[in-house]
C-alpha cells in the first residue's frame, strides 16, 4: 500500500537490527570511531551526527516495520527518497492538496463557528462577539481579533505554559490576511458611532496538528465569519449595550480568501521542488515555505472567471530564494487550488 523506497533492502534491516541502530546512533559522537558507525558512514546512512528527531519519542517501542524506524531516525533521507521518485510519503503528487472538508455552525454557544479538516489537520474556529467603546481617532470602526491556539491536544511539540511563537505568528498572519483582503468592513460593526461597536473575537483551535495550520485556520476563520449573526442591539441611556427587538442580522462578509501553502525543498538536481499543502513531516524537513492567498469576491458563483482575475497576497517568510518565474507558478498553483475548492464552497454557502 505505502511505497517503500526501493533502495532500502528490507532484508538487511530486520526489526532487531534497526533497533540496535537506534541505540547506536542516538549515542554516537561526531568523531566516533566505532566500526559499526564507520560502516554506516561508508554506506552513506549517516553523513554526519544526526539530530535526534522529535518523532523518535513517539515511535520508540513500535519499531517493528523497518520503514517506520527509518522514517523516525532519518526523516530527511526518508522524505528525499520519495521526492526522487516524484511522489510524497502519503502518495500525493507534489502539487496535490489533501482532502478538504468543512462545515459550519457546530458550536451553538458561539456566535459563529466552523471547522476545517485538511487531511489529518483539524481546526475549529469560533467567533465570539463583544463590544467596546471606539477610540476617538476612529469612532466608526469595529475590531477584529484573531487568536490561533496550538495547544497540547494537537501535538506534543508545543509548550504548555505559553503560546508558541508559531501560534502567535499564525494568529497574526490570519488577522493580517483577513484585514488586508477586506473580508469584513470594520465599519459594519458599529452600533452607535463613538459609543459602541462590536469586536469580532475569532478563536481558532487546532485539534490535530498534521501540518499546514495556516491554510486551515484562515479558511476556518472565514467560514466562521460567514456563520456569524450580529444580534440586534442598541445603546441605552446609561451608555450600555442592550439587546433590543429585532432579528439577528448576518454579518456582511465581502471576500473569501483561500490560501495555499507550499514548502520548498532542493532536489538532487539542485532545483527547487514545491510541495503543496505539507504534512507535519514535510514541514519539519523543509524549513522554507511560501503561501499565496487568493481573494475571491462574495457572493460565490461557480464561474471560474472570478478565480482567474482574483487579487492575490503573497507571504514568504524568509527561506530559500525564488525567482519571479517561480512566484508566478506559486500563484497559479493557488488558483488551481481555488478552482478545486470552489464547488465545495459554493455548496456549503448556499
Amino acid at each position, binding site marked *: 500500500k505505502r511505497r517503500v523506497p526501493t533502495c532500502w533492502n528490507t532484508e538487511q534491516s530486520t526489526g532487531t537490527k534497526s533497533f540496535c541502530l537506534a541505540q547506536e546512533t542516538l549515542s554516537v559522537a*561526531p568523531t566516533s570511531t566505532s566500526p559499526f558507525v564507520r560502516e554506516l558512514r561508508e554506506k552513506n546512512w549517516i553523513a*554526519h*551526527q544526526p*539530530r535526534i528527531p522529535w518523532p523518535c519519542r513517539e515511535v520508540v517501542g513500535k519499531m517493528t516495520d523497518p520503514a517506520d524506524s527509518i522514517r523516525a531516525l532519518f526523516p530527511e533521507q526518508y522524505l528525499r527518497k520519495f521526492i526522487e521518485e516524484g511522489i510524497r510519503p502519503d502518495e500525493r503528487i507534489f502539487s496535490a492538496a489533501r482532502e478538504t472538508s468543512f462545515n459550519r455552525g457546530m458550536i451553538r454557544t458561539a456566535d459563529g463557528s466552523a471547522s476545517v479538516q485538511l487531511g489529518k489537520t483539524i481546526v475549529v474556529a469560533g467567533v465570539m462577539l463583544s463590544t467596546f467603546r471606539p477610540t476617538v481617532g476612529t469612532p466608526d470602526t469595529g475590531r477584529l481579533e484573531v487568536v490561533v491556539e496550538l495547544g497540547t491536544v494537537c501535538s506534543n511539540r508545543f509548550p504548555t505554559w505559553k503560546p508558541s*511563537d*508559531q501560534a*502567535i*505568528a499564525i*494568529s*497574526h*498572519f490570519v*488577522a*493580517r490576511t483577513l484585514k*488586508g*483582503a*477586506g473580508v469584513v468592513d470594520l465599519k459594519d460593526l458599529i452600533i452607535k458611532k463613538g459609543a459602541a461597536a462590536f469586536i469580532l473575537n475569532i478563536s481558532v483551535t487546532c485539534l490535530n496538528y498534521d501540518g499546514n495550520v495556516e491554510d486551515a485556520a484562515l479558511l476556518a476563520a472565514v467560514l466562521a465569519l460567514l456563520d456569524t449573526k450580529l444580534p440586534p442591539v442598541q445603546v441605552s441611556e446609561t451608555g450600555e449595550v442592550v439587546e433590543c427587538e429585532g432579528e439577528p442580522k448576518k454579518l456582511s462578509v465581502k*471576500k473569501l*480568501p483561500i490560501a495555499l501553502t507550499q514548502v520548498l525543498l532542493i532536489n538532487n538536481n539542485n532545483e527547487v521542488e514545491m510541495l503543496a499543502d505539507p504534512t507535519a513531516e514535510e514541514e519539519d524537513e523543509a*524549513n*522554507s515555505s*511560501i503561501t499565496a*492567498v487568493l*481573494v475571491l469576491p462574495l457572493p460565490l458563483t461557480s464561474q471560474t472567471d472570478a478565480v482567474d*482575475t*482574483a*487579487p*492575490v*497576497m*503573497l*507571504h*514568504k*517568510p*524568509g*527561506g*530559500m*530564494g*525564488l*525567482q*519571479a518565474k517561480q*512566484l*508566478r507558478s506559486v*500563484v497559479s498553483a493557488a488558483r488551481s487550488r481555488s478552482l478545486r475548492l470552489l464547488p465545495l464552497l459554493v455548496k456549503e454557502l448556499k
Partner: protein
Amino acid sequence: MATRKDGRTAEQLRAMICELKPLNQADGSARFQFGSTQVISGVFGPREGRASNRDSDESTITVTWNRGARMSGPREKEYEGIIRKTLEALVVRAQDPLCVIDVTVQEMLEGGSSLAAGLNAAVVGLVEAGVALHSLCAAVAVALLPDGSAALDPDSEEEAGAEAVVTVAVRASDNAILACTCDGAVSEVRLLGAVQAATDASKTIFTLVRMALEQRLETEQRCW
C-alpha cells in the same frame, strides 16, 4: 508622473544611513535608516547555545524584535519569524554547529518600511559581527496605491493610504527573492511589478552597504 508628498519620484528611496558599530558591547551592530525610520540591530554570537537551543549540525539563529517604547505583540513575533528564516538562508550555518547567533532588532523611530529597515540592519549587523554569510541581502517596501501606481520605500502616511504594502527581501548573489510579505490583496501583475521594482532598488542598498563596510574596514586597518 506626479511626485509624492515629500517630493520623491515613484522609484526614489528616502535618504539612507548605514552606520556600523553604534553599540560597543555587542559582537556586531548596525544602524539602518530609511529617512525617518531608524532601526538598530545587535548581534551576539556565534556563542555557545543552551541544550534546548542548539543543533548539532548547524548554528541556530534567534531574533528578537523590540518596538520603540511599546509592548511587543503578534506583529513583532511575525517579523521575528520572517527575519529569522531570511537569515537562516543567508548565514553559513554549517560553520558553527552547536552555536547560537542572537540577533536583536530595536525599532528606534517608526516612519514606515520598518520590516525592510530591520532586515537590512540585521544583515549588516551580522557582517559586522564577522558571521559568515553566503550573500548579502537587502529589503525594500513598496506601497501599491489605489490609483494604480507604486511607491518605493513608503513613509507612514503612504503606507496608511496604500491598497497594499509589499516588503521584499532580495539576495545579492542571484537576485532571488528571499522574503515577501503583502499587507493587502492586489492583482498578480501589480504584485510581480512591485517585486521587480524592489529588486531594482535593492542594488542601491547593496552599494550603500558595501561603501559602509569598506569604510569600516579602512578604519579598522588604520587602528592596527
